[in-house]
């Protein structure tokens, strides 16, 4: 018999595991933060940085040389072009 108490303990453990797993995965913000003002090529699943360069052309070229044919290109914000719109 699986009691309600056991169920809730089980759920707590599942939630803790899930939280620990999530915390290991860096967000896009965290990945690009060390490179203000630079172009960053991320893997297609946004889990790691493939290349960093000063132009989109250079960063794409470097990423493709490393085998990532369709990377996600992100311009890391800096003090001059910090926001997307304003």
């Amino acid at each position, binding site marked *: 018999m699986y009691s309600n108490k056991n169920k809730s303990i089980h759920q707590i453990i599942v939630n803790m595991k899930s939280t620990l797993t999530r915390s290991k995965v860096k967000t896009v913000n965290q990945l690009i933060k060390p490179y203000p003002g630079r172009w960053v090529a991320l893997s297609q699943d946004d889990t790691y940085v493939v290349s960093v360069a000063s132009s989109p052309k250079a960063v*794409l070229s470097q990423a*493709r040389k490393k085998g990532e044919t369709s990377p*996600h*290109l992100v311009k890391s914000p800096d003090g001059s072009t*910090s926001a997307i719109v304003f």
Partner: protein
Amino acid sequence: MSYTTIPYQKIQIPARGDLPSKIVHAPILKTALLYKDNEPFYFDSVVDSGADFCVFPASLGELAGIDITEGRNAFTFGVGGKETLYFHKVKVQVTIKDEPWVFECQAGFSTKMNARGVGFLGRDGFFDLFQEVAFNQKTKMFRLKEF
């Protein structure tokens, strides 16, 4: 009737001028320009109900293989002031909940947007895909209602 609800993306804005560092939220979708048989790459675009049409950085259009200055040009007035946009009929792919959605539109390409590296998904083309596009600033989500 099918709805898709998508959370806004968090963007870390470093301090600039007198403004402190902060986090903003924006409705953003991963986008690719599909041109000829060129291998696509992805970049971010803001879903923008105020944009008449889709606009992308000229540098990313060139990178996709488009000869930007060969397009029809038009003066526009936007947030960044007056500028000349070059228009091309392009195939755009946006990723919604891991699913690719493709549409064709006359998109503008802007050299002023090169510095920011993000596009705008405007009403002509992107919004035409849906019956309704709704933004919820309180929950920081936007909702797409399919036809």
